[in-house]
């Protein structure tokens, strides 16, 4: 380097440093954990993303007489909500959510094995990446955040033919369908999906996002709701569960 150097504060602003919350993620989480002494260790283990500790906590709670299926809502989902709330507030980052969701899903499997009853989920969502498109990381994030928020996800994967999407919607009867496309050449499949769903009389909200997709495009088909960030997907599902229709969703999530 030549002798040139600068005081960077005169030419750029590290807004992330400037805006960082004073509280550490651990402190913030500690305020949100359930008070119950059987549930709290489970919630903590989810926050830490430690599967083994989640199972251990569940075992203790079951030994103490708790119903395994009730534990899904009372402990696992409560622990996961701590994580998703802190993610929404910008206190923790996505990999933490992913690791916590993995731990929570292991916990749910464990609870199911311990019981003959089936748990009721908040609702089912079908996720897919448009036909011809292999860019699937955004979809994986969307699916993980939906699961983290208590939704059952049927993940059709990437490069999914239109027919297969329609079949899945018929078979699974989801509360919402999501589509991800990162290429201007593949996003047109969403229009085809929309038309075929309408033909079949399936008026399911169709949340669409991904790099190439924009609000103007999604507005051109009836069932489409544009989602800018993955974190919008569970928010949309929550609204649907609360009774919102497609136009109300468009009203709320079409930000531009």
């Amino acid at each position, binding site marked *: 380097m030549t002798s*040139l150097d*600068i005081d*960077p504060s005169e030419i*750029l602003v*590290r807004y992330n440093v400037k805006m*960082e919350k004073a509280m550490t993620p651990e402190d913030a989480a500690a305020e949100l954990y359930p008070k119950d002494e059987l549930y709290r260790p489970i919630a903590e283990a989810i926050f830490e993303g430690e599967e083994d500790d989640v199972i251990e906590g569940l075992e203790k709670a079951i030994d103490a007489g708790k119903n395994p299926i009730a534990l899904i809502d009372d402990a696992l989902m409560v622990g996961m909500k701590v994580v998703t709330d802190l993610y929404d507030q910008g206190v*923790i980052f996505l990999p933490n959510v*992913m*690791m916590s969701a993995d731990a929570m899903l292991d916990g749910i499997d464990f609870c199911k094995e311990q019981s003959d009853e089936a748990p009721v989920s908040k609702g089912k969502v079908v996720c897919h990446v448009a036909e011809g498109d292999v860019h699937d*990381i955004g979809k994986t994030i969307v699916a993980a955040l939906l699961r983290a928020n208590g939704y059952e996800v049927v993940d059709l994967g990437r490069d999914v033919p239109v027919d297969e999407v329609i079949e899945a919607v018929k078979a699974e009867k989801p509360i919402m369908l999501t589509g991800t496309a990162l290429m201007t050449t593949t996003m047109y499949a969403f229009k085809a999906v929309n038309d075929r769903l309408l033909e079949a009389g399936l008026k399911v909200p169709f949340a669409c996002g991904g790099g190439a997709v924009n609000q103007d495009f999604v507005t051109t088909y009836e069932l489409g709701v544009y989602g800018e960030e993955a974190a919008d997907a569970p928010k949309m599902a929550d609204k649907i569960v609360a009774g919102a229709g497609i136009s109300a969703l468009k009203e709320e999530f079409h930000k531009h």
Partner: protein
Amino acid sequence: MAINRYTKMAYGSADEMIFGKSKFPVKAGLGLEIGGGYTTPEVNYAPRPEAGASKEKLVKEYQRITTDIMNRMVQVGFPAVVLETEHVEQMTNNPTWGGEVAHAQKTIMEEFHDEYGIKCALRHTPGDIREDRDFLELRGDKFNTLMESFEEVASNGADLLSIETMGGKEVFDYSILRNDVPGMLYAIGCLGTMDMDFIWQEIASVAKKNNVVAAGDTDCSEANTAMFIAGGLLDKNLAHTLAIIARAISAPRSLAAYEAGAVGPGKDCGYENTIVKSIAGVPIAQEGKSSTCAHSDVMGNLVMQCCDLWSNESVEYHAEFGGTSVQCWSESLAYDCALMNTATATGKAKDLRDLFTLSDKYRDPQGYVLAYDNAYRVGEAIVKDGNDIYLRAKNAALKSIEIMEEGVAGKLELTRFEKGALADAKAALGALTDDQDTFMSDCMSKYKEEVKVFLPENYGL
């Protein structure tokens, strides 16, 4: 062709590295010498979606694009240009389509060269089609189609051959969303390099046979995925300190192309290219402030520091107020190059280089590590164990961490979160063995179990 690992730096010091000049310039196309003392714009474009409907429509679209660019270059008096055609999938899957597009483009470029003497070259980048719907399928029928595609474009007018290969991506996609740095190291440093060794020997022979240039690769599928997930300053999807560790690990991976016979210019979106240039001395393409048509960037000026070709990454072909999109962006690139070339002609190149670097060096940890003085140090860490693909990638990661730690002691500001991710990454790397075989077999069992789409046979394992 054989693999020759780099165990020495091409440059004696970081200060010798500069834009427009490389240790080993590459002659290509119609009168161009890349890295021979001047920078050249490299224009990238994507056809409108409707144009993909048939071969005839595609060829026509690329003819329009090529003519538009060449016209604008001569209208504004620019001496040289490179065009890059990144294949849409149909063009690679039907090798003759790619060949016809290359031929049509080159014919137009030759006409302009003959009429005006403008220096130019055509790069073709077939898509890495080696995958099934769910799995990578790196070796087998799709590989054969891909090689046919290279053969077709090389024999029909493409001067520079490139690709953005995907080896290791299945393990990488899994680990990047879980802060798993050893997984990233295995995916990019080991699996990625093994696939690079495999495919680039083949591409180099196609190039040799057709007397064209085996140019180079980029770790787009991994390091850029990390960079995009990391996003802007306020995004919360990945610590930028981890994104740059992935990038550092990608340098020895992209270097492998040159170890297998490629000679440059490296691909534009390989932000690891400054490190690669320090080791291999090959010319490199870069993109940044003039590729905002394709993506936002936190080191847009800095990456110009040592570029030989200066690119816009990609823009869809359509009308803008200033002409077609490819005309607008090629003109911007060419003006950037004119400024760099003026600095070279007036003996001010090093000053301009340092201004580019300094304007972004402290904006983000990614730019800090890629600043050419630091990038050079990552290069030294790589060549120290140049013959061991695992150790050299691990060295690169550790060196990038050390550089960031020094930065924090100085003018680089990091959030507590970024520092935490850095400390965790350091601890995870510190706990790893130095033995390649142990690492590889540990990872093999772990990821075979955790990543259901990971097929070891893709890597000859």
